[in-house]
């Protein structure tokens, strides 16, 4: 299993850079991954999405879809694409320390 260092934290990741052990996730790690994904910074709107995804994952061990995020009122589809340009579901999941989304939607 590959290891990556973000700041002074070492984390286990899979071949695509998704954390494999959520207990290693910290906000600083999230910020470092976000920078790697090309995001300038994580603002309150980003954190709202990240925290919701983590909560959903904890509750039903599934990474929520864009539709789910949209319907839950966390962020609209448009906002999600603005917050995480070039692939909101995958990027947000990776920053949140979750696994890669599996669904087609």
């Amino acid at each position, binding site marked *: 299993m590959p290891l990556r260092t973000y700041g002074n934290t070492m984390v286990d990741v899979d071949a695509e850079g998704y954390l494999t052990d959520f207990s290693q996730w910290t906000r600083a790690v999230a910020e470092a991954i976000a920078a790697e994904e090309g995001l300038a910074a994580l603002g309150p709107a980003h954190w709202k999405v990240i925290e919701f995804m983590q909560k959903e994952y904890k509750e039903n061990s599934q990474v929520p879809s864009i539709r*789910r995020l949209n319907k839950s009122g966390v962020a609209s589809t448009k906002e999600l694409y603005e917050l995480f340009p070039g692939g909101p579901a995958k990027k947000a999941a990776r920053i949140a320390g979750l696994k890669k989304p599996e*669904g087609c*939607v």
Partner: protein
Amino acid sequence: MEDKIKKVSIIISKGGLEGIYPGLIMANGARMEGIETNLFFTFFGMDAIIKKRMGRIKVATVGNPGMHMPSLVGILPGMSAMATSMMKKTMEKLDIPPVPEYIEMIADAGGTLYACKATVDMFKLKKEDFCPQVNSIINVGRFYEISAGGHIIFT
């Protein structure tokens, strides 16, 4: 990852849920991967963007071998409605939205939707007949111009 797909143009030419969904799933999936996406609706695929029709698209139970149902059974009243309702329930469980919501989602995700000029003329349609997410009515030549530098998928 040098040869990542950057752009796709997807043609939806067939009607019915089984004709329309694959293209919508491909288009939304492309946007989720950060791929520039155009959607071109033609012939009966156009039902997906016609305001009056987009919410009532059914699955074909006659002449559809994929249904594994003899056509004689398929013609029974209510068969198509029943098959459609079953399919819709399954899709809702999989988080696949109904057609109108899907169209909105793809447009919000930055996909661009076009209607085919030839079909519009043939069915005597007007811009007002289409949902607001439709960018414009274009001819085949313009479709190829728009698709330049990307992949074309025909469904």
